[in-house]
């Protein structure tokens, strides 16, 4: 945890989370949430130094292959099977400020919709050359990028015939612990997005649209890979203009 981004750290508390924009905890259409949803009201509080702070992940901890899912698990000279794509974007906060030094981790099913996990039972084939995980630390302009294969859709036991649309899971680690976020990215034009009970936990259509990455034709590499652009927004920070100073500050 070294090489801090070369800028003055911010110490403001975070904007309150808009709980109506996110999924509620209890969403019976997504059955697993029924017994895992807290039923009492959350205790709402302005962030303290315990949430304003967070660990730093240096770019130096990222290996050369960490953002290449086509090759980072493959045998030498081989590569994962599937449609080659690049996913890239920026991590911003709600004020529109690029967030550098943010750890972005991603995981996904293979091109057939199969995860490499012992709990996974879908009959689609395992790809011996695909692990399904990658990570990156955003640069000074908040950018991340990785190469992968487009994941397949897959069925899951929820309703009788529920399918997950093709998606990539993202974990984003901002500068403050209360910015911590996990989400999923979907692909432009996929009709299955609107049939998915997990997508459907989000009440606002505009919020769902924020999870759909457009095809980025401009960044598509001819004769190689198509590109999708997925920007991520973390909670914004209050400026500290009139804040009481913390003791010892």
């Amino acid at each position, binding site marked *: 945890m070294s090489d801090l981004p070369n800028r003055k750290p911010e110490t403001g508390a975070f904007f309150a989370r808009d709980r109506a924009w996110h999924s509620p905890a209890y*969403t019976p259409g997504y059955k697993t949430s029924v017994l895992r949803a807290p039923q009492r009201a959350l205790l709402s509080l302005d962030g303290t130094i*315990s949430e304003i702070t967070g660990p730093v992940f240096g770019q130096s901890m990222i290996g050369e292959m960490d953002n290449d899912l086509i090759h980072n698990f493959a045998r030498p000279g081989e590569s994962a099977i599937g449609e080659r794509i690049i996913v890239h974007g920026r991590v911003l906060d709600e004020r529109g400020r690029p967030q550098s030094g943010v750890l972005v981790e991603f995981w996904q099913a293979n091109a057939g919709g199969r995860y490499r996990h012992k709990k996974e039972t879908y009959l689609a084939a395992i790809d011996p050359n695909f692990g399904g995980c990658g990570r990156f630390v955003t640069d000074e302009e908040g950018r991340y990028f990785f190469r992968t294969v487009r994941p397949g859709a897959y069925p899951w036991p929820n309703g009788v015939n529920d399918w997950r649309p093709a998606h990539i*899971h993202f974990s984003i680690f901002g500068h403050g612990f209360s910015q911590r976020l996990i989400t999923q990215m979907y692909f432009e034009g996929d009709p299955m997005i609107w049939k998915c009970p997990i997508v459907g936990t989000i009440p606002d259509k505009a919020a769902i649209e924020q999870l759909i990455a457009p095809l980025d034709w401009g960044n598509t590499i001819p004769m190689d890979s198509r590109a999708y652009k997925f920007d991520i927004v973390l909670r914004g920070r209050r400026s500290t203009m009139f804040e009481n100073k913390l003791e010892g500050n």
Partner: protein
Amino acid sequence: MQELGYLKETPSQTAGPYVHIGLTPNFCDITGVYDTDLGTQMVNDKTLGERITVSGRIFDGAGALVRDAVIEIWQADSAGLYNSPSEMRGTADPNFTGWGRCPTRAEDGLYSFDTIKPGKIPFKDGRKMAPHITFWIVARGINIGLHTRMYFPEEQEANAGDPILSRIEHRERVATLIATRDDAKLSFDIYLQGPKETVFLDI
């Protein structure tokens, strides 16, 4: 009128059943991509402070173990300082990361962190917050990560003056945030739902 021009936070989605692939790939037998899983080691031989182990389980509303969650913790060092660029009060112990990540095991639902007991931390108004560890829990069926805190049972006086614990209206629920302790072993179970539901924070 001018536009405020703020963006909306990216909506959360569940971490799903295969969260280990992304956050702890070595734990789920995806080896050779990363040397180690992040957050497995918080302390080393030189870390200052009282060594403790924090472990526990997560229960759903039917009392069943949640065996597919990932927990992250974040805490101050033994002097109450965070190992973070946003920590302006001083420099935290360089031998303590303050951050840990651990899945609940499929066999017995247990998570476990080897760490140290944190110091007290100032609240905005100068009061002290009692020593505590921040928890963040994600799993299949949890649409947005759950924040809570673990406090220490031997800190009765500090807990009584803690500004966050003081805000809990139903006083019998304060106990849901206080671990039990046997020597250096702290035990902290989390109840997602039901009569013993843990107090979760919107913070």
